[in-house]
Every structure is written in C-alpha cells, then in structure tokens.
C-alpha cells in the first residue's frame, strides 16, 4: 500500500583474538557515543536453588572492578550516564557519553570484564538493595506476584519458570562471594559477550581502542548452554488464587515459538490484533462494548526460547470470573475460526513499521538492537526484521492461531479478590 523506505542500519564488525565480537555503528549526526556490552547470560542460566543471581550480579558490576574502585564516578566526570538490565535471556550494560570521551568508557568496561574487585561490602549492600527492589515491585504492590505464579504454572521444566528478580527473597539473601566469583568467570568472559559502539565514532578508532583495552583480557571458556526443554503441554492448567486486592484479575497464556522462528513474528502480530492500541479487538469488544474488563492487554515478552503469549486484565466489579473468561475465549474462538481481514493485517503491518521507525530514532536503541541480534546469531538480522513481518499473510495468522490457541496449550490464572 505504501512504499516502505527503511533506513538500513549500517555497521562494521570484527572479532578480537579472545573471541569478543565488536560492532561499530557510525552516526555523525549526534555528538554522543554509546558503548553497549551485552553478556550472553540471563536468569535462565541460574541454578534453580540460587535464582535471582544474574540480576543481583548486574548490581555487583557497579561495585568496583579490579583496578577501578568506582565505575560511576569517572563516567560521570566524563559527562556520561549508564544503566543496565537483566532479562531471562541476557544481561546488558550500556552507557552514553560525549563522543570525545569514548576512551573512558572503554577503560571502565574493559576493566570490569577483566575482573571485578569482589568486595564483601558491595555484596552486602547490593543484597539489601535488591531485596528492597524485590519488595518494591513484587511484594508491596497489588498483583505483584502475578508473573511469579504464571511462570510457575506455564513452565514445569524450562528455567523461564522463575522471574529475573528470583524465586524467593532468601535466594538473594543467601548469595555468597564464592557464588559471585564462580558466576563471573563462567559467564563474563569476552567469548560470551558482544560489544557495540555507536554514535559519533570511527571504525578505525574503535578497532584500536578495542584492541588496546579489551584485547588483553583472557578469552575464557565458551559457555555452552544446555537448558532443559519445556515438554509440550498436553492439558489445560488452571490456578485459582486469592489475594488481598480490590478487583479480580484474569491472566491467560499460551506457549509460542522461539524468537527466530516464523511463529514468533506471527505471534507478535496476533498480539497487535488482539491488544495493540485503541482499535484492538479485546479493548474494543470487552472493555468498551461489553464492559467486562476495566483494562485488557495482549502481549508477549520477546523471549529467545519458546515464550508465552499473554492476555491480562482486571474485571469490572460485579462481573464473574466465569463470564469474563468465557468472553475472552469467545474472542479467541472467533480469531481461530475466522482469522483476520486484509485491512486488519495492513493496519498491524503499518503499526509495526511505525514502531520500528520510532525505535530507531535513538542511537542507544540502535546499539542495543545490534547487540541483541548479534547475540541471537547475526546482527544482520536487524535489517531483515520488517521483511519477516511483511511476509506474514492472513492465512498464516489463522493457521498459527489454531496452533497456539488450543485448549491444552493454555494456562489460566484466576486471581480472586478476597473482598469479593
């Protein structure tokens, strides 16, 4: 319908002798530079008895490295800002600073890849900080444990069954310095990392800086991931749960395919049909027309391994759980039986195009995406994403809906208010 005119993200790529993959994305329109280091380790790589560790570890990465007592202070002095996040799949560290000061970021990032200081004080404090984070987001908030319950219901085997914050406060509280050291030398090695430098930089300059600062770090052993696969679900699972919340909530999930499979792109578009924007089906029919839910969303987590598609909402007071669930099922049944129109497909493709264009505005976001696709296997995938969405047909949507929305592939959390 419209000409698609994407700016391809240009980059150069090279690998150091120690296995560190380096990507450079030049953009002279900004005065800033971004340094993004992504490690191929997430909550799914944790010991089931020591969950929450990848995330706790992310905090410790700011507690001083072997030659530099404080990470933040010099970066701030160089006019920089930084942050990090941990998901079930990976851990990412990124900083942005005026491009003239890029070498400061190399100095800091390479030293903490070489080795941390492993300070007892830092571990003691960050255990407490993470426990407060745990309380703030997951204990002290109404519905804060929804995903703790849902992950436990939907996954019996795969480590996606726990959240990145951890299975229990005690797991975080019991972390020892030996755990920290072992984790670092297993996962935080050049061979398990991707470095992306973007912004007002030159590839030649980055080659020199990378060789100088990251080159001398020992390669380490390639981490071979060998996670237990989730068996195919064969019967619907339902959990009724009661909590001190004001309103009933309903969360349903279905297993979907892994990040690089065709199914992922179709599932992503299905979430747009059902829950993307004010004209989406669930919002229009169940929030607006039938007034059964006060909000209702449909989304997924972009998981690398087989993930979940979720529908999640709060019931209007007075509506029964059964009636609300039946209405959701009706919408799903209609999608499965009738699929979507060409017009609806065009709409969600247009929306996807727009989302991608807005995401690509920020150089930090471009750097992050390059690192992610390289971690998935090939940074060039980034420039093929939109084509994969465009290739999806209405028949694909119908067929894949029939595949995932089988009753035996479903998990239902009926979250009841004690007050009702």
């Amino acid at each position, binding site marked *: 319908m419209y000409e698609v005119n994407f700016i391809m993200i240009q980059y150069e790529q090279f690998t150091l002798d120690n296995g560190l993959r380096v990507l450079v994305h030049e953009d002279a329109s900004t005065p*800033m530079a971004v340094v993004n280091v992504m490690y191929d380790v997430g909550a799914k790589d944790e010991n089931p008895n020591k969950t929450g560790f990848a995330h706790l570890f992310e905090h410790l990465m700011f507690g001083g490295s072997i030659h530099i007592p404080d990470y933040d202070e010099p970066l701030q002095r*160089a006019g920089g800002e930084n942050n990090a996040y941990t998901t079930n799949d990976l851990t990412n560290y990124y900083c942005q600073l005026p491009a003239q000061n890029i070498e400061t970021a190399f100095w800091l990032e390479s030293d903490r890849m070489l080795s941390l200081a492993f300070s007892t004080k830092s571990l003691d404090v960050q255990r407490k900080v993470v426990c407060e984070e745990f309380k703030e987001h997951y204990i002290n908030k109404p519905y804060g444990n929804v995903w703790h319950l849902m992950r436990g219901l939907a996954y019996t085997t795969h480590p996606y069954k726990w959240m990145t914050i951890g299975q229990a406060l005690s797991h975080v509280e019991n972390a020892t310095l030996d755990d920290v050291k072992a984790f670092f030398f297993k996962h935080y090695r050049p061979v398990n990392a991707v470095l992306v430098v973007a912004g007002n930089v030159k590839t030649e300059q980055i080659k020199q800086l990378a060789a100088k600062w990251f080159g001398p770090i020992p390669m380490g052993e390639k981490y071979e991931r060998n996670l237990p696969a989730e068996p195919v679900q064969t019967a619907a699972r339902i959990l009724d749960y009661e909590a001190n919340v004001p309103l009933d909530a309903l969360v349903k999930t279905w297993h979907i395919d892994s990040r690089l499979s065709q199914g992922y792109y179709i599932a992503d578009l299905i979430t747009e049909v059902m829950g993307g924007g004010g004209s989406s089906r669930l919002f229009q029919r169940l929030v607006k027309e039938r007034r059964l839910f006060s909000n209702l969303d449909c989304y997924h987590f972009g998981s690398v391994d087989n993930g979940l598609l979720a529908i999640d909402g709060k019931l209007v*007071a007075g509506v029964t759980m059964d009636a609300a669930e039946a209405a959701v099922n009706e919408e799903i049944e209609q999608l499965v039986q009738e699929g979507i129109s060409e017009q609806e497909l065009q709409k969600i493709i247009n929306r996807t195009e*727009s989302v991608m264009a807005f995401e690509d505005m920020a150089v930090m976001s471009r750097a992050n995406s390059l690192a992610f696709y390289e971690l998935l296997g090939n940074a060039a995938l980034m420039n093929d994403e939109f084509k994969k969405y465009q290739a999806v047909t209405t028949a694909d949507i119908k067929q894949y809906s029939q595949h995932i929305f089988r009753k035996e592939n479903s998990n239902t959390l009926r979250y009841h208010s004690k007050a009702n």
Partner: protein
Amino acid sequence: MLNRTQSPVIYNAVDFNLQLPQLQSHTLDNGVPVHYLHLGEQDVMQIELVFYAGNWYEQKNMVAAATNFLLKNGTSTKTAFEINEHFDFYGAYLNRNCYSETATLTLHCLSKHLQVLLPVMAELVQDATMPAEELAIYQQNQQQRLTVNLKKCDFVANRYIDAYLYGKQHPYGTYAEAADYAAITQADVQAFYQQYYQQGHCMIMVAGKLPADVLTQLNEVFGKLPLKAGSPSIVTHTIQPAKEKKYRVVNDEAGVQGAIRMARHFPTRTHPDFKGVQILNNIFGGYFGSRLMSNIREDKGYTYGIHSYLQNNLHDSAWMISTEAGRDVCEATIAEVYKEMELLRNEPLDAEELDLVRNYMMGTLLGDLDGPFQMIARWKNYILHGLDEAYFNDSIHTIRTITPATLQTLANKYLQPNDFYELIVV
C-alpha cells in the same frame, strides 16, 4: 604495558559548545502560534496542540482530566472506535495528557501520513461530542484504577504530600476520590470542552523531519478555527499549606516498605536562585552519584533508589525528596536525609565533587538535546514559563561558574529541616 589504574584523558564536558537549536515560529491565520524544529534523520514527526485547559481552569474536581481523556472518544461523524482505527491504521499515536495549567493532544506519526491524520485531529478539537456512554466507561474504569492505586503506598504518599504543600483545594494539591469521578456530568465536560478546546487558547509545537508544506497544511486545518493565541484571563488560586509538618500514615498493615516524601516550598524556574539550586539538587539527590544515593542506597542499602527534584510548576513550586525504603528503616532513612542536608550546609563542596557534577550535568544536557522531540519539549517548557534561549545559556553559565561558597549559601537558605514536610506511608 597498559596502566589500567590510570584513567584516559577526560575532556571537560564543561568546555563543550552547547547550543539549543533555534526554534522557528509562524502564526496561523487565526493568530495561533506554531513553533517548530525541522530536524532528525528518521521520517517521523510530532505535533502537539497545547491548550490552556489544565485543572487550573476547572470548577469541579477532575473535569479537566475527563474532558481531555474524552477528546478522542467520539465526534458527530465518528465513533471512538473509528477514530482509533484511523490513527492505528496509519501506525500513528494520538495521546492526550492533562497537566495543571495545560492539557495536550499529541500526534506521533510517519511524516508521509500527516496529510490524512491532521484533518481528523482538527475534528477532535472542533467536533468532539463527549458521548454519555464513553463518559460512563471512563468513570467506571477510573474508579477501578483508583481502588487499585490506593493500595500502593507510593501513590498515596504522592497525593498527600502535594495536599500538604498546596492545600487540597488548590489545583496542585487536589486529588481524586471515587465520588469525584461519579459526580462528573456530560454537561460539565461539554461545557469545559467548548470553552477551553473548541474556542480555547492554544499553541502548536511541531518537531521532526517535516514535510515541506507543513505550515500550509497546519494553516488549512487549524488556521480557520475559532482558537485563540495567548493564555486565558488570569485565574488565581491561593495555596493553603498544612500547618503540621510531620506525618506517619499506615495504609496497609501488612506493608513491607514505606513511601517517604519530604518536601519544602521552593520558587519557580524564573526565580534567580533556581539555576543554582538545580546544581545543588543534583549534588544532593539528582543523579546516581548524589549524596543521598551514595549514602542511603550504596552505603546503607535501605532502598532501591532515592531521588530529589525540583517540581516544574508555573505558579508555586516545591523541592521534593522521594524514596521507598524498608519498613523498619524508614525513620533511619529520614535521619540520614537530614544529615546530608546538614553536611551541605556546614561544609563547602570540594572542588573535585563540584567538577564532577559540572561535567555530568553538561554531558547529560548534551545527551538530552539529542533528538528533535527532546529539544521541542525543552522549548515548550521555556515558552510556558515565559523564558527563552537566554535562560538556557544562563543555566550553562551557572553550571560552569557556580562556586562552592554560593552552593553552601543556597544550602543554608533552602536545606533547613524545619521547612520540610515529612511523610511516611506504609
């Protein structure tokens, strides 16, 4: 041999030549000003209609917010669904937000779609019908959301602290009760719409990679409407601060954390002390390396995060400290905040810390100005405060030149415990 203990040369961000790109302005046939920045690499843009239609102008609680919300929920020729469908189809985002003085309708879109989107945007400004059914859904869902939010200690604390500072009768201090939502009538929102949108005072902020004829398009669509330039005739509200300064509230017996808010009145952005205190605030609690974060998170581990900031109100404003801390360490956290105030009052900043903060602020300013939407947001804020690029340049001058003595004077003037309200909500 590489010396890893030695930092590479750091170029002082303070020396960078920071400039705010010049805003361009144009006047539509009806006098409505358009301010725009033509910048950016991606084919995307933003158009924001800024109306003087915040809760400053409402006669009845929550009417301004409800009217703003219902802007896109029906016109005489389109249902809410059809409006959503139109913007969704072109991958555009149409958002509305209600603030204290202003309320906005903001479009983000691919520049190539502007032509089909602008006329519908104008329809919302001229022909919204505020249907009774849509109002009823809004009331019901807002009431539900409120009952959930009232379980959260941070939400409750944010309501109370503003009410202490300004009084609950004041637009800055007011908050919604379920009954307020129930009391809104269709006549209320229709009347507010007519006065403050249809025939309201408005300005248009535009940024991104703009089509060559963007001004012509804007004039065709908005230039003939009965909109007005400037702000409405002056409405005054008087603050009525609470007498009592210290509060302890139990909202949830089983709560494991407390939301702490500490706040004092503070002049608005146009006050001569504002720029200096912005730097003092950074040192105190404005960035990751601040005194409050270093002490209360990174040394004591009492909290996931603690921040201080200057509110950005146009009339009366405040200096706020905000954190959620473990229930048993809330009082200890407050004691530490006062200790940090005392240190800033009694000891001049050493050159190294000040130097770091100068560089940090300049570097982040450089980063904040990266991108057309960020730049136009800064300009909008200046225009609403009656400021211009001289303010930006003076701020930079202040960052470069402020002395430890001046900062200590400001700390003694403003970081006085007796001036602060303090609140813990468990």
